[in-house]
């Protein structure tokens, strides 16, 4: 898509506020992802707040992470931890009373936050696409599948013959393992898994650099869930898009992602590769989370959960947000907010246990 590949292109683009858009299916096909040296998405200090009667709700608070081109990152956490809010904010689909209070979302070098409505509209689907939580209802019930995919293409300036458009849609459907005739069908004629795969086909119809997949399988049975995740996996490999998978099922994201980010009460508290997170969890919350997931490995004598409940986002405790539930809590945790600590191997943990400058007696216990 980016025809201009000189090094200072990002700034130029940022100034022009607009990418060069393909106008025909042929151009669209040739556009591809390219080989930009920049990260696919680079989020810095992003804040998404809500104004409520009780005060400001910090749904996403100072979240930073980087996603390389073609990388798969999973964001996990309990419900209400802000993972979906974060996903929506990346698409700049935050709805009032929510708003982005600050931070940067650098998509291939271009900051999305300052874009105006029209620029952002053009960036959606073409640059960053969304596969929603409940794709069961994400399709317009009164339109044929192909028409719904055409709509996105046409509104992004694709002007081509009906035949070319249709062939493109057929290719997309085949790529997600659906027959061509699905294009002529209405949503109610499809099963849940098929609808979800249509959503993936729609999301990738303009070869976006980033796909935000928000719990794409939460409403599906396990067998279909695997099918859909495999579809997403294959499409990701084919297009080379980077994927942010938002989920709550540790097992599921472990099967799909390269890296996992753990969110708690609006903060990204732990991020690392799948192996790092699962085999050597650092943050006490991550540890408890991993431990609470039952598996088929061995029958456990006792199932353990995480005691307590997440704090209300309007009234966060001072210091560490996890302190009230943390087994390794110390006095300092209730006073000082932990920093984002880089502990090497591109791992980040937000916990005093790993902060050299903070005196913790229980250091190294984990």
């Amino acid at each position, binding site marked *: 898509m980016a025809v201009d590949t000189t090094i200072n292109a990002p700034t130029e683009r940022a100034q022009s506020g607009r990418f060069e858009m393909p106008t025909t299916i042929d151009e669209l096909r040739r556009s591809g992802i390219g080989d930009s040296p920049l990260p696919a998405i680079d989020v810095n200090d992003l804040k998404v707040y809500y104004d409520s009667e009780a005060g400001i709700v910090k749904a996403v608070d100072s979240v930073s992470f980087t996603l390389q081109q073609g990388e798969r990152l999973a964001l996990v956490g309990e419900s209400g931890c802000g993972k979906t809010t974060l996903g929506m904010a990346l*698409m700049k*689909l935050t709805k009032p009373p929510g708003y982005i209070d600050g931070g940067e979302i650098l998509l291939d070098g271009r900051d999305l936050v300052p874009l105006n409505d029209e620029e952002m*509209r*053009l*960036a*959606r*689907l*073409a640059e960053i*696409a*969304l596969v*929603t*939580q*409940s*794709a*069961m*209802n*994400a*399709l*317009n*019930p*009164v*339109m044929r599948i192909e028409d719904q995919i055409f*709509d*996105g293409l046409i*509104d*992004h300036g694709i002007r081509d013959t009906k035949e070319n458009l249709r062939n493109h849609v057929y290719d997309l459907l085949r790529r997600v393992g659906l027959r061509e005739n699905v294009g002529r069908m*209405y949503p*109610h004629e499809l099963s849940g898994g098929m609808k979800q795969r249509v*959503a993936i086909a*729609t999301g990738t119809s303009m070869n976006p650099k980033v796909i935000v997949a928000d719990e794409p399988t939460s409403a599906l049975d396990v067998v279909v869930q695997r099918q859909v995740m495999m579809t997403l996996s294959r499409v990701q490999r084919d297009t080379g898009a980077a994927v942010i998978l938002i989920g709550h099922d540790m097992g599921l994201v472990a099967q799909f992602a390269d890296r996992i980010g753990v969110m708690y009460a609006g903060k990204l508290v732990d991020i690392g590769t799948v192996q790092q997170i699962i085999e050597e969890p650092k943050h006490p919350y991550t540890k408890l989370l991993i431990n609470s997931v039952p598996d088929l490995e061995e029958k456990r004598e006792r199932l353990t959960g995480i005691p307590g409940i997440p704090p209300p986002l309007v009234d966060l405790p001072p210091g560490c947000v996890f302190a009230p539930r943390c087994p390794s809590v110390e006095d300092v945790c209730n006073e000082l907010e932990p920093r984002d600590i880089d502990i090497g191997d591109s791992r980040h943990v937000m916990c005093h246990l790993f902060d050299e400058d903070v005196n913790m007696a229980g250091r190294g216990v984990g």
Partner: protein
Amino acid sequence: MFVAVVFVATSFNFFLPRFTGQDPIATRLELLAAEGVTTRAEDYKALIETYNAKFGLDRPLVFQYLTYLSSAVRFDFGASITKYPTRVGELINQAMPWSIGLLVTSTLLAFVVGTLGGAVLAWQHGPKAAFELILPPFFLLAAVPYYLLGLILIWLLAFQAKLLPLGGGYAPTTLPDWSDFGFLFEVFKHSLLPALSIVLASIGFWALGMRSMMITMQGEDYMLQAEAKGLTKTRSFFRYAVRNAVLPQTTALALTLPHVVSGAILVERIFGYPGVGRVLYEAITGFDYFVIQGVVYIIVLAIAFAMLVIDVIYPLLDPRISYSSA
């Protein structure tokens, strides 16, 4: 449903007078004959004999009922009492086109304007401010019966401003000639006020309904998806939001038809419009029972038919409903 409604209405028409213990029709006929109102006394006698013969009033009730049903099916309601020997069917035939013309036009107009207005009002991106000023008064008008609005309009536009005729279907001095353009214009002018009172009073209703539908629709996942797909506002408004919100609105159209008709009856009365409303009113004041029955029957039939049409159109709007399962 169509058959059921018509059948129930027909039966109702038949049984109700008989449940009163006496035969109000015969009583009324004799009473009027004695008073000698409007028609000659001998006409009433002839009338009573006709009906006695027709329904066999001395025969068992079931038999009378069957005779009644069969004549209803043939649209034979007998003769008017006050306008004997004019047939009831004839009276209705003359009035029906006026009513249908007025109602269909004004209802559709109100539906389209109200629905679009409500849609825009609920859409957070559109030219909302203008509509926010214009529409709310219509919400209030929706609470006011048509005919009261009609009275106000007569006073304002016909009596004070003298812009439009006070009432009637055409000027009493003209002869109806449907090929004459001047006459057609006159008919149009006469229909404006009654139509306006229906339209003004029902725009708000449709707008309110559409507005709340649109608000519901905007919470739907496909609306979020439309935005995430980077669709233009116009497209997601028309093809996604309005397109879906209009479906329940259409169902509401079918459901409220009876109310539209009820309101229109009085509007016609107030404007002296030569439709079935006036026929009905004249029949009520003259206790012309057979005309009342005929009018009720025809109106119910017309409504049932209109609902049938909406039922047939609906699958075209909503692919989820197919003829086979309907």
